[in-house]
């Protein structure tokens, strides 16, 4: 019964948020594919500059035809804790048309267009004049959850892939080639370092045209169009108070339980060093004292007072 009401309320509440968002998003030519079923089909598009880089959805491959010597740009989003691995396969132009060896290279840049190192993979591959294809690859460092502004560590946000021909005979430039790109990611939020760190806004560059302000003006311009951004984690009312379930909860709870058990065990040890029953010391008025002499050996049972 309350669902329609809730729906309309939600729509009302969201309307003012969505309307200003929709306008710049519409003018954004950031070729972000609609998050429909098409995201799994390989993209046949590629950009030629950072600004026009084709955005690949998570898990989406690219398969494009290009000319030897083109600079090909793709963008993808990576979230904290992930380790993206790129693998590329370049099918070279027919050997009959070529005049010498070709070197292709793949480079990865973060959202601020800073070069990112590869920890593994063939960043530069040279194919002899007879080679039919080349395989390239790059494994990035694990994306950190936070880093100092002065550092160049990989952070959540957009990453750009640039595939280019580093060296080729001039006669071979312009020949047809085709490229396949696959991006695999492993890892997730749980093993992001440093723990507890978070980047308030992912490194997702704006792609809208800027506006020059008058000197001294303090107006904050509206947020504009953005490049590929990683998916936001779901937000709940308790977000901010509770960072979510992780293995630390289990360790801590288990530790608490063990500590309690050990505490009880330790307590028990002091009370019954010789395996006596607790009832004899526990009851304040001894329940019944059939034998008056039974009190006499009791003090001797305290090792602390009696023997040591």
């Amino acid at each position, binding site marked *: 019964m*309350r669902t329609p009401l809730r729906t309309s309320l939600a729509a009302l509440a969201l309307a003012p948020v969505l309307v200003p968002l929709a306008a710049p998003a519409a*003018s954004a030519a950031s070729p972000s594919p609609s998050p429909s079923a098409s995201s799994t089909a390989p993209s046949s598009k590629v950009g030629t500059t950072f600004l026009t880089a084709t955005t690949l959805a998570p898990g989406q491959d690219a398969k494009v035809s290009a000319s030897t010597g083109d600079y090909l740009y793709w963008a993808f989003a990576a979230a904290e804790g992930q380790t993206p691995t790129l693998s590329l396969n370049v099918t070279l132009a027919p050997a009959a048309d070529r005049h010498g060896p070709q070197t292709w290279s793949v480079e990865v840049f973060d959202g601020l267009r*800073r070069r990112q190192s590869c920890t593994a993979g063939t960043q530069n591959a040279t194919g002899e004049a007879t080679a039919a294809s080349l395989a390239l690859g790059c494994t990035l460092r694990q994306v950190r959850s936070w880093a100092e502004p002065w550092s160049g560590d990989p952070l959540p946000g957009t990453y750009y892939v640039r595939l280019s021909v580093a060296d080729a005979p001039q006669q071979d430039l312009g020949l047809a080639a085709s490229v396949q790109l696959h991006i695999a990611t492993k890892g997730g939020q749980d093993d992001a370092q440093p723990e507890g760190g978070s980047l308030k806004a992912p490194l997702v*560059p*704006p792609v809208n045209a800027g506006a020059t302000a008058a000197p001294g003006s303090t107006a*904050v311009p509206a947020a504009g169009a953005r490049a590929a951004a990683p998916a936001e984690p779901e937000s709940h009312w308790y977000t901010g108070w509770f960072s979510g379930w992780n293995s630390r909860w289990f*360790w801590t709870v288990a530790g*608490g339980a063990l500590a309690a058990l050990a*505490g009880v065990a330790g*307590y028990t040890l002091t009370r019954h060093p010789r395996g006596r029953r607790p009832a004899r010391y526990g009851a304040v008025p001894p329940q019944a004292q059939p034998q008056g002499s039974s009190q006499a050996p009791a003090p001797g049972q305290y090792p602390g007072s009696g023997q040591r």
Partner: protein
Amino acid sequence: MTTDRRPTARLGSLLAALAIAGGALLSGLPAHADEPSGGATAKATGEAPKVDLVLDVSGSMRAADIEGKSRISVAQQSLNEVIDALPPETDFGIRTLGANYPGDDKAQGCLDTKQLFPVGKTNKVEAKTAVATLRPTGWTPIGLALRGAAQDLGKGETTRRVVLITDGEDSCAPPDPCDVARELAAQGIHLVVDTLGLAHDDKTRQQLLCIANATGGTYTDVRTQEQLTDKVKQLVDRSVDTYTVTPTKTAGTDTCATAPVLTPGVYSDREKFSEHRVYRVPVQAGQELRASVSVSVDRAVARDYGVLLQATSTAGQELVRGTDAGSGRTDVASTGLRWSASMTSASPTASASASASPSGAARTDVCLVISNSLAPQPGVAADPGLPLELTVDLAAASPAPDGPAMGLGHGWILLLVLTLAGLLTGLLFGWIARWRIAVWREN
């Protein structure tokens, strides 16, 4: 009897749970459904993507060297397919060069470029008929044709694309087509020229590469008709995808005091070899400045190159720098930096800049200084400067993390320590309890 009732009761509660979940889903859905539609609606900038195809119809197009067919027939058949596959929103036009003047007079032959079909919504049948009537005729005034194409496309805020299909080097220089391309690029009219060469000689290739390089386009050496068709289709599609992404033209100065004040967004400028360009960005407390710069290498430069982006205070103190260097063939040299204003009180250099800024600690003016260590190869023009693209963004500053997961622990050492602590506490309390009882009993 009872065993029959229980499942129905369970089924009932399951249904109820499903209904609740479904209701919750439905109430959640409209919000989600709205978000993608915002991005999917038509680009509301008003301008359609514009593509002008410049086709060489000079006499040499008669040569039959592409899969046994003449160059012009290959080009015509490809164009037919391209026109058939035109995206409905594209404004498409065709300009010819060397199509009309058959004579030997170079002066007149080199003026022979004509708009075959104006840039606009294309009548596909008319366009195909017009292309079919073309016969290889005259000279090759590429430079003039490029100027004509730029005029056909007009000026505006979106990217315009020229697709140049030719089989020969320009026989009419001056104007040298590469100089024309650079001059058009320098006008900041967002013109990209993609070139497709039908002949494979070195001079043609060099010229077409130069044109493509100067305007940020691509060069393709056409070997088959299929390749030509696919490439032109790809270029038309690329134009549709990316034509609205254009930076704002700005002009940096050489000192911070006079530098233009930038807000978040993308800017373009030109920077000569070894020139410094300065821009100014106001950063509020608690904000983080993010800037990245790409210097395009649009002409022949020395083998090694580098780019430096410095953030300085208004007093000239360096706050942070981003740098990149490389060697070999490249299109851009890029780097970026982050700088957070929330660190103002912590860092001595930053506090100096804060006090220097007019409005005190709340706002810090940061100057971005862009310099390059590119050097031209001998004989390469230094003017106009290299294209430069600057992206400025302001985001919430991210303070250093204050420890992992709200003080929760992790690992075997933790368990051991907690257990030992529990044991010791238990023992201690046990001792105390026994001691107290002993004392009580004695009294």
